[in-house]
């Protein structure tokens, strides 16, 4: 079963560069290694936060707007795709990400990821 982990944070309490941010980056790097060693890691990427573009065509005509599709305080900053047994296993990996302490991790079951 593949799950997409959508990681969010709140820009207003962004960690400034310094020892705290270094420690968090260290934890991210360790977690990625742990996922790869456990054989659950499929794909991951960071996302730019303020250069999003949204496309809609409610009446057939395309409307392009600046910004993410919803105005929320939490900003999507990264995703990880994992391949695990069930939702409990996905929750256990989500709990290990630093994002749960300052933002959120949304878990979406997904069809099997195809890469070119």
């Amino acid at each position, binding site marked *: *079963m593949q799950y997409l982990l959508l990681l969010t944070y709140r820009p207003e309490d962004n960690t400034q560069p310094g020892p705290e941010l270094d420690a968090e980056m260290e934890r991210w790097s360790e977690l990625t290694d742990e996922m790869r060693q456990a054989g659950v890691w499929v794909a991951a990427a960071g996302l730019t936060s303020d250069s999003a573009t949204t496309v809609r065509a409610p009446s057939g005509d395309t409307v392009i707007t600046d910004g993410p599709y919803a105005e929320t305080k939490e900003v999507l900053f990264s995703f990880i795709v994992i391949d695990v*047994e*069930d*939702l*409990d296993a996905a*929750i256990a990996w989500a709990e290990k990400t630093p994002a749960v302490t300052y933002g959120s991790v949304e*878990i979406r*079951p997904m069809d099997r990821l195809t890469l070119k």
Partner: protein
Amino acid sequence: MSALERAYRDERAAVLATITRRLDGDLALAEDAVQDAFVAAAVEWDRRGVPDRPGAWLTTTAWRKALDRLRHARIAEARAADLAQPVSYDADFDFERSSLDDDQLRMIFTCCHPALAPEARMALTLRSVAGLTVAEIARAFLSSDSAMERRLTRARRKVTEAAIPFRVPPDDLLPERLAGVLRVVYLIYTEGHGSVRGDLCEEAIRLARLLARLMPDEAEVAGLLALLLVTEGRRPARVDDAGALVALEEQDRGRWDRAAIADGVAMLERALRLRRPGPYAIQAAIAALHSQAATWEATDWPQIAGLYAELARLDPSPVVTINRAVAVAFAAGAAHGLAILDDLGADPRLESYLPLHAARAELLRRAGDAAGADVAYAAAIALAHSDAERAALERRRDRV
């Protein structure tokens, strides 16, 4: 009651649990297949008579229906590669009675999974474990049949699509997940209790009994069952002839169901033997002390105050502190209780918390501060949610 109705009541939950396990937790498909089996039974049993073992017949039939649905789904997908592969389940179904308890327990944990919305957990548990009909659940939650059916369908689809596991959680997750299950049963009880509808209370007690049978070594399961039984024993005196709620203090203790209370006390003793008591066992002990007192005044207040202090340590909440304050007031004097409430009242979030105002009013009156009590009663009455609640508060205020 017809054989089919009896099978629906007695066998449905077990058949559903077994089929769900065989389908690796696909609750949505299992529910459809079991429904198909009951439709088939309505026709077949009428024509050929009731089978010797209705449960086995229903399980086998539901299993065939599930396989049919899987085959059709594959054809609908119209993917040649899939069609080439046979359905990977055995068509023959060995109906093993011995694994039924395990399947029921798995079903309970699946229905109460924290990834489901709290209302969906209650509805799904009542449907898939307790075996209530959609109409019965809709009535209990004051919802329409179609809205309840949608809620259940959505919940089942999430179980299937998100792969919520059909299992008893492993040891590292068990304490947290079991607490979640007990919470669902407790909320089903309070849903019935709060609205003075007995049907949900009885279902909650049936569920707690089932859990106590399936998990005999879990102290908090016994603790919850004890709490529900003792509380249920007091239910006959909880509403007066005019339909108004009667506070524990004013209840006619002669109307209490002594047999239910004795059952609850016996279950509490079992919980206390298992290990250090948890929050439900402590609440059961408090309820038992109330039930054993001949009058409100003769209640063992010092021990109740001590139990509330322990409960506040394990599971702190404003309502626990308020109850502790009332117990302390009776054990040591109103001023001591009021001091605890004043500490609590310093929290601005509790400004519109009815139980706090009601308790303050009561203790101020006992302390002889009639004017202060009137102000506090007015604040409580303004916050009442229902006519019954308002009437009960007004009656207490007007009492001499």
